[in-house]
């Protein structure tokens, strides 16, 4: 298994500002994902973070709003840009050595974002 450290665990931000969330994995993973989750609700995939290239975004999510970096196989960031109260949510990063004999993804602890 992989251990994923995510920070910050929570933040309260002013509208119009940006927040960058970081995920550090304790070992190399082939795939990393970013999700959004309303409290008590299911997960919505934002994008797949690709190492050394642009992330692959799901429908309804765009790079200008959610720029993602993945400079190597153990680290990724998600920025929530120009925030509005509608961006208040839990953001989760996930990853795993998928395709290398491993089948399940693991998750960071989540970032609870409140925009005021």
């Amino acid at each position: 298994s992989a251990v994923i450290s995510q920070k910050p665990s929570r933040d309260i931000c002013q509208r119009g500002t940006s927040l960058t969330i970081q995920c550090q994995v304790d070992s190399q993973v082939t795939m990393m994902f970013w999700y959004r989750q309303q409290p008590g609700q299911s997960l919505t995939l934002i994008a797949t973070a690709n190492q050394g290239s642009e992330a692959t975004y799901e429908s309804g999510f765009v790079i200008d709003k959610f720029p993602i970096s993945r400079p190597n196989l153990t680290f990724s960031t998600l920025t929530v840009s120009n925030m509005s109260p509608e961006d208040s949510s839990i953001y989760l990063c996930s990853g795993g050595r998928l395709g290398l004999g491993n089948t399940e993804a693991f998750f960071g602890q989540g970032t609870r974002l409140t925009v005021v």
Partner: protein
Amino acid sequence: AQSVAQPEDQVNVAEGNPLTVKCTYSVSGNPYLFWYVQYPNRGLQFLLKYITGDNLVKGSYGFEAEFNKSQTSFHLKKPSALVSDSALYFCAVREGGGSYIPTFGRGTSLIVHP
């Protein structure tokens, strides 16, 4: 396309009683099935998976799940519930040999009463 249904928003059970959290799935090829648990203010924690082999799989914290191909189900079970099992449970599926991106169900809140 792949999808997961968790028909119950909430399951209530008394401590010491058996529990079942239901999950049905749809996938084109062979299913890879997973259960995750989420405690308040935490990320998702992997519980168990079915990839192939024995239909009954055992996981963490005494949980197990039974794969039923004919009913396309993968229900999570535990013989004796604990109050500490109270959490949000997610079933997920992806197609073996296909996309590595899992599809998650909407989650089931398990409440175990003392």
